[in-house]
């Protein structure tokens, strides 16, 4: 799971463990985040995302291991001597300072001369589209505007790494989606290495170059959004990121470079190979990869239990010999319409739509 292949890691964890009392928040974490990458930590509440971020910042110190920011071992270095900037969940703007003073704060600490400081503050405010707001106080701004000030205050520091802890969590859905796009394009424009914490899988898929899916202080899977979504390594990833059909099966042989497996509903082929006959497998199939045809066509026999119209898609809840199955059908050509609860259908999927999960690491 660890990748030490990058030469230019801006953030590096070397076997880092962080405990709170007896609870382990981060377990033996090794991780490299290369320069310029938008890296997301995704996982359920309490899995250690914030702790990981705070270890980079220095707000927490690890019990074991070392943290590096651009090849400098910062373990034990206090936060104010580390080269990072952070956008906090509730923005943490200084209430007694106006927008310009908030943005200028860090530059003052770096002793940037007055004239240059004013210039950089102005540029940063232009960048986040808050030109006219320099004199306002945080309380006089909307949530989205406060968010932008927080971002301006961070990027004006030109840090090696930008840390964001659920920065969009406090915004409503529309604004949130708008800010996702803006934040991402800003990050590309500045080329700044970014670590982004979220528990929203869509947000992570939308914004990231790489996603680390965390669970109980461990990184369960690390990869590009498409990889993590389409090739989930474990049952946890398969169900935390979107929905999955989980099928228990037994390998019974191989033919034409494919494996044949037997599950409760019947036999089908999967693209992965290398299993011995009789080996037990845990399989996952994304609901949008499931095809439905009238009964009689080749595939697994199933009965429709429920049909849920969702606008862009229709969700079909089915059962096949006691195994629950879901299919998401696009409402584009009319192929999805006409299915009725109680109807017998035939279910199938491409062999390469089937992912074999790592059973040793399943719940």
């Amino acid at each position, binding site marked *: 799971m660890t990748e030490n292949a990058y030469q230019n890691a801006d953030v590096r964890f070397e076997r880092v463990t962080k405990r709170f009392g007896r609870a382990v928040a981060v377990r033996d974490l090794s991780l490299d985040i290369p320069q310029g990458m938008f890296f997301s930590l995704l996982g359920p509440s309490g899995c250690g995302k914030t702790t990981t971020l705070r270890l980079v910042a220095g*707000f927490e110190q690890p019990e074991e291991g070392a943290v590096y920011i651009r090849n400098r071992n910062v373990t034990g270095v206090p936060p*104010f001597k580390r080269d990072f*900037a952070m956008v*906090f969940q509730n923005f*943490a703007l*200084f209430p*007694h300072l106006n927008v310009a003073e908030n943005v200028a*704060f*860090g530059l003052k600490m770096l002793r940037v001369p007055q004239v240059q400081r004013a210039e950089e503050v102005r540029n940063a405010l232009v960048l986040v589209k808050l030109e006219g707001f320099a004199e306002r106080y945080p309380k006089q701004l909307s949530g989205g505007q406060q968010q932008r000030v927080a971002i301006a*205050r961070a990027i004006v520091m030109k840090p090696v790494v930008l840390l964001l802890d659920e920065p969009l969590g406090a915004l409503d859905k529309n604004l949130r989606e708008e800010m996702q796009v803006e934040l991402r394009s800003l990050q590309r424009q500045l080329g700044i290495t970014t670590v982004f914490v979220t528990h929203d899988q869509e947000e992570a898929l939308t914004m990231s170059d790489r996603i680390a899916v965390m669970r109980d202080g461990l990184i369960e899977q690390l990869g590009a959004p498409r990889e993590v979504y389409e090739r989930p390594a474990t049952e946890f990833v398969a169900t935390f990121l979107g929905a999955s059909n989980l099928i228990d099966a037994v390998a019974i042989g191989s033919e034409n470079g494919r494996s044949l497996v037997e599950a409760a509903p019947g036999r089908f082929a999967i693209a992965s190979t290398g299993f011995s006959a009789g080996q037990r497998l845990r399989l996952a199939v994304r609901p949008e990869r499931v095809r439905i045809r009238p009964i009689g066509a080749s595939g697994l026999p199933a009965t429709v239990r429920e049909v849920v119209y969702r606008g862009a898609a229709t969700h079909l809840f089915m059962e096949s010999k006691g195994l629950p199955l879901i299919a998401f059908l696009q409402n584009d050509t009319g192929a999805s319409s006409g299915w009725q609860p109680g109807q017998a259908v035939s279910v199938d999927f491409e062999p390469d739509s089937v992912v074999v999960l790592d059973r040793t690491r399943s719940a």
Partner: protein
Amino acid sequence: MTRALLIALAGLSYLLVLGPILIVIVTAFSPTEFFVFPPPSLSLRWFAAFFETESLRDAFVRSVWLAALSCVCATVVGTMAALAIARRRGWVFTTLQSLFLAPLIFPAIVFGLSLLLFFKLIGGVPEFPGLVIAHTILGTPFVVRAVSASVLAVDPVLEEASASLRAGPLRTFRLVTLPLIWPSIISGALFAFILSLGELNAALFLTGPGVTTLPIEIFSYLQFQGGQLVIAAASAVQVGIILVLVVAVERLIGLRRIVRSPS
């Protein structure tokens, strides 16, 4: 009906609180030799008498100095204590918290006596420094209380934000924490000042011949000389000082609030 009752009750409480003070203040401006209420006309005669009586004037000046010094000490000690313990959990800090607040519930007269004994034990402390120590101790709880409450209201994340912007602990305190808590420091200081200015019980034990505070002087003046109206003038001066301070602080804090964080 209930509204009328409420107004009547509120009026009554104001009357009970302010009535006696008003009577004293109005009386202080009386031109008569003895207490007459309401006074037939107004004069500054008793104020003049107050400032011309050396013992009263000296005690007054000493009391103001005492209040100022003990207020500064209590504010520094109380603020540091509040910063150190307000956010901490666990029995050690809970105990410390109670210790700092103990003078609030300890009878001041017992406290004065024990402090006197303590001073004797360590070989004697001159009257004025002894008084400053006593009033610092009595004033500190007010500062601790006021500042603790506002420290708890400061989001610790703001201090992390400051650190993330390269501000070390001292600069974070000066630029973030202090600007957010200083109104409470000022109001704690004001309490400490007022407390010292009117404190009688502890001072009874710690003053000595020639080194008295205004409340002590007023007390003995009433006991032995019986001139009521000069004492009314003394009280009026005291109330005047406190009023000026309260209004000044109110304006300072209130104004800053309006300027800095309009809502």
